[in-house]
């Protein structure tokens, strides 16, 4: 019989713990496929965040690290500086990367660490139960913004791609989204490109993935996909913010 589909070797057989309809799982698969297609699983090192993806170390079929909240880029720096041939990636949520770990991500980019960061922006703190994130939209309800995020009180959501794209050594910065098949395919291309540029030793590579959290958004999986498209994309436009192919 002809095989038409196989699960990627980049993922273990461990059952994912994510809520139904959560797009974390799809993002895992895209990363795993990219690593497998580039044939680097046996020289890959991933760093799981503190957040819903904390157990990512059990899911990726390569050497893995669990970092303290927000510190994955610093851990990746230590790994990459001692073992430069390791294809090193961090997987981080918006609380992890844009709040508590804001310093670490900016300076990893500033130094041009030859790592790839996959930034999962679901506009909320998933793991701790739906508190406000630095990427929560104005008017969006969170358990710590019960009347909706108020611009006067907590400012505007941070756009990480736009910020990081100003950094010379950030050679690849792209925002993608998980709301339909077409965009998922685009996301896969961006993730693979980021790894490719890392392998070529170009510099810091960053892919922001707009993702859903049906559980804490209080929506069904389908409603969540629609909400992402209607509300997140207008504020967090998808597309490429920077590609420096020949940067060294």
């Amino acid at each position: 019989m002809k095989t038409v589909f196989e699960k990627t070797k980049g993922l273990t057989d461990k059952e994912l713990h994510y809520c139904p309809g959560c797009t974390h799982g799809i993002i895992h698969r895209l990363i795993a496929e990219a690593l497998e297609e580039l044939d680097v699983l046996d020289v890959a090192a991933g760093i799981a965040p503190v957040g819903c993806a904390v157990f990512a170390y059990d899911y990726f079929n390569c050497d893995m690290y669990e970092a303290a909240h927000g510190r994955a880029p610093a851990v990746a720096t230590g790994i990459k500086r001692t073992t430069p041939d390791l294809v090193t990636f961090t997987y981080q949520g918006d609380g992890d990367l844009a709040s508590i770990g804001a310093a670490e991500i900016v300076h990893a980019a500033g130094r041009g660490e030859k790592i790839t960061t996959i930034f999962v922006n679901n506009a909320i703190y998933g793991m701790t139960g739906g508190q406000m994130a630095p990427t929560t939209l104005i008017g969006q309800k969170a358990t710590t913004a019960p009347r909706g995020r108020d611009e006067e009180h907590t400012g505007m959501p941070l756009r990480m791609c736009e910020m990081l794209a100003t950094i010379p050594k950030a050679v690849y910065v792209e925002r993608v989204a998980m709301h339909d098949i077409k965009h998922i395919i685009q996301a896969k291309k961006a993730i693979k490109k980021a790894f490719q540029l890392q392998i070529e030793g170009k510099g810091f590579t960053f892919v922001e993935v707009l993702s859903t959290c049906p559980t804490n958004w209080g929506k069904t999986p389908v409603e969540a996909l629609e909400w992402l498209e209607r509300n997140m994309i207008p504020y967090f436009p998808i597309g490429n913010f920077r590609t420096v192919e020949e940067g060294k």
Partner: protein
Amino acid sequence: MSKELWKGNEAIAEAAVRAGCKYFFGYPITPQNEISEYMASRLPEVGGCFLQAESEVASINMVYGASGAGARVMTSSSSPGISLMQEGISYIAAAELPCVVVNIVRGGPGLGGIQPAQSDYFQACKGGGHGDYKLVVLAPNSVQEAVDLVQEAFDIADLYRTPVLVLGDGMIGQMMEPVEFYPIPKRELPEKNWAADGTRGKRPPNIINSLYLKAEECEIENLRRYEKYAAIQKSEVKCETYNLENAEVVCVAYGMTSRVVSNAIDTLEKAGINAGLIRPVSLWPFPSGIIAEVAALPGVKAFLTVEMSMGQMVEDVRLAVSGKKPVHFYGRTGGMVPEVSAVVNEVKRITGEEI
């Protein structure tokens, strides 16, 4: 090799390089900047890497990554910076990653000052970060001993898969003393087959981790690590004694303070007063056994703990003496160093002598 004059901080850095440390991550803070500066110029010569981190939070997490990948790695800082590292140190202890952290202690709390102090003893020996863990803590009292202990620290770290803290003070870091670099006795070290440095088609993935959501599992991990700590307590106690024979008053002091105290003991001897010294070299494991034995000697009337703090190690001395004899305390704080005459007077007060 003959002796050469070395500044403490630079000697500590060179000792690390001689111990095979090729990676250093750190953030500037006085009075330990010479360690980073020395590493910045020296490590590229041995094919290693020095990197100035954006903060101590980042440096300790870079150490986490580097050690996880199997490298010999070090960071250093001074008190406020070590405070910032505590979360990372707790993760490193839990994930059982070998590394060496140097704290060249300055006066505190808060921003404190930049003069020598010993007020980070609690932080070093009683946890510092969250959770059930221990650090091996070594406290040199000369530049030569700092050089020896730093080299040994890397072996202890690798042997037990544990972070080791070398606790100096601003004086050790800044003063110059004659030093000889000789190879320290080699220990048999286990292979780092746990390192996450790429499976390279040879083994299943390794995971560097400290998360155990099931309470039962977390307890098992802690119990297992505490068996290791028990082995360290058995084999790694380091302690020096001076003039204990016939001592009526036994002083306990570590690091630079111990040198002030031994001078005081010599002065007292000339005045016909018998005092001795117990100097813990490993602050954890603490030499409680030796202190307890000495406390049981009939000739010993009292203990005097001398520290550059408001009294931190004295609590461990009291636990070890366990009520057998009175334990007195003398300390200076905030960066002030006890004077020989002050220690002499304290001992005289205890023996009821005229001051």
